[in-house]
């Protein structure tokens, strides 16, 4: 059973389009995250939700909007995609924020052309 799953695994789209990435965890964790990993493997947190509430919102363009319909899901919607959005996006979850190990999904490789 996959603990943290993301869909899709690959996403190729054109500039200006709107796309969504879905994430689900079946670990019963309270906290979920979205990270962006660039081509140099630099991993940066974008958002963190705890029990469906936004607790961390880094300096991310407001074209990125997370949505947590319930504790087990955290989706990421991106409007008006730009070339610079090309990266691998990882979803993760933890029992409690920051203090516990995080479980990562397999990643979604987004390519904007």
């Amino acid at each position, binding site marked *: 059973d996959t603990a*943290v799953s993301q869909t899709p695994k690959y996403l190729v789209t054109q500039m200006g389009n709107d796309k969504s990435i879905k994430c689900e965890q079946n670990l019963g964790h309270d*906290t979920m995250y979205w*990270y962006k990993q660039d081509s*140099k*493997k*630099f*991993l*940066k*947190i974008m958002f*963190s939700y*705890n029990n469906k509430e936004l*607790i*961390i919102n880094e300096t991310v363009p407001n074209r990125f909007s997370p949505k947590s319909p319930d504790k087990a899901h955290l989706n990421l919607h991106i409007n008006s995609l730009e070339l610079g959005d090309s990266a691998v996006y*990882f979803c*993760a979850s933890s029992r409690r*924020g*920051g*203090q*516990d*190990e*995080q*479980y*990562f*999904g*397999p*990643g979604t490789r987004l390519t904007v052309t």
Partner: protein
Amino acid sequence: SQQGEEDPQALSIQEGENATMNCSYKTSINNLQWYRQNSGRGLVHLILIRSNEREKHSGRLRVTLDTSKKSSSLLITASRAADTASYFCATDAIAGKSTFGDGTTLTVKP
């Protein structure tokens, strides 16, 4: 700027040798974690060390933490080809937020 910085950026060793990578950070922390990332995969948690701990072991892994120097090291003993991956440290200086270092890419040659 990044809270954690890793050193070296890349490390290449022969199977059976030990690998040591270091992580330095800037502010006080509650805990520090090490993760491994195989190529094309998500990160996998290896070990967590709390600010009041100095050393921790898990199998072939040994992690040390020196809060006075704001640094940590990860030692992998008797390395195997399967240890080839990128290794990241993560600190939680701010509650609820883990900040990852730039990573060390380890290559273990068979």
